[in-house]
């Protein structure tokens, strides 16, 4: 990050990913996936507006709590109802 105006480039260029914004701090309810019941249909992955649901090598659903804002779309679209929204402590 530039320390003063002189350090900034003449032409403003975006050089950093927005992933440094830890939007997970916005969350008031947290999605918890019941991995036993999940049949890996990836409907939640498909509809996550924050790209906060990842698929690991075994095909399991992983939620990125650094960026998940807790909108609850994953819970609403899950056809097996195996995602639960719980209040953050």
């Amino acid at each position, binding site marked *: 990050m530039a320390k003063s105006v002189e350090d900034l480039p003449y032409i403003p260029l975006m050089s950093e990913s927005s992933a440094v914004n830890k939007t997970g701090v916005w969350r008031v309810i947290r999605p918890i996936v019941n991995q036993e019941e999940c*049949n890996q249909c990836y409907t939640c992955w498909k509809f996550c507006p924050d*790209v906060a649901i990842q698929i690991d090598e075994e095909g399991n659903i992983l939620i990125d709590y650094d960026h998940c804002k807790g909108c609850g779309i994953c819970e609403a679209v899950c056809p097996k109802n195996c995602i639960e929204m719980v209040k953050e402590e």
Partner: protein
Amino acid sequence: MAKLTIPQEELMSSGHIGCLGCGATLAMRYLLKALGKRTMVTIPAGCIAIMSGIYPRSFLKVPLLDVAFETTAASASGIRAALDAKGIKDVYVVGFGGDGGTADIGIQALSGTAERGDNIIYVMYDNEAYMNTGIQRSSATPFGAWTTTTPVGTTGDFKKRPKKNMVEIMVAHDIPYAATASVSYPEDFVKKVQKAKDMDGTKFFHVFSPCPTGWRFSPEMTIQMGVLAYQTTVFPMYEVENGVYRVTKKPAKRKPVTEYLKLQGRFKHLDDETIEIIQKNVDKNWEMLLAKAEFTKKYAE
């Protein structure tokens, strides 16, 4: 492991600062999945312009150009001209504007681009008002909606004019491809983009992007809103290829519009009489669309 129905590669980063349950970011995510890495995006002012957060952050993994409100399509034309001059052929150029930046402020530049037939893809993500600046009415706001500039109050001063039909305006430019899509049906959207991306000329997509903040509904219902808009045919799914209309998805049984309207705070002031007007208008538009599809069928190659 089940098969994924849309490409897995993510070209949009997490950590963007859109609201909870934002539909516009889903539109961007699906679009980039369909186009792949060799894409350049130009965006006007609007919700999508603030998604990156503070300088020097970017929420896309592809080149992103921020331009003035009215110049999205013009800048996309310029990028295409520069790529042509350099002899680069395998890059898709995308203009990605909101409904205000497209239907109101950017329409002149977009009309010019479409008339010149510049080889770009233009996507209008439609959240039906100026959401970024605080829910002001745009020409894509539907009849009957509350916004901060059509505030209802005690006088019942909701928006009295119907939504501007951008697809029709673009079809009138005789472009190769124009279509509607919805964030609730990503497979349909991705399929349409992949079909149109290599056509020569201006391609236009009108993407329905529900906005929990501006429409006054709970953020987890974003996908459900798109589904209901489709099932009630408030927002029908169709494509127009060289003037030939085709309804790409038809609901088995149309639901009454109240099912869509009653879930949104921006329509809560509506009485039965006004809902009747909306229903009649939706019926008329749906029947006209079916008639157009039937009439233009014979011109399909």
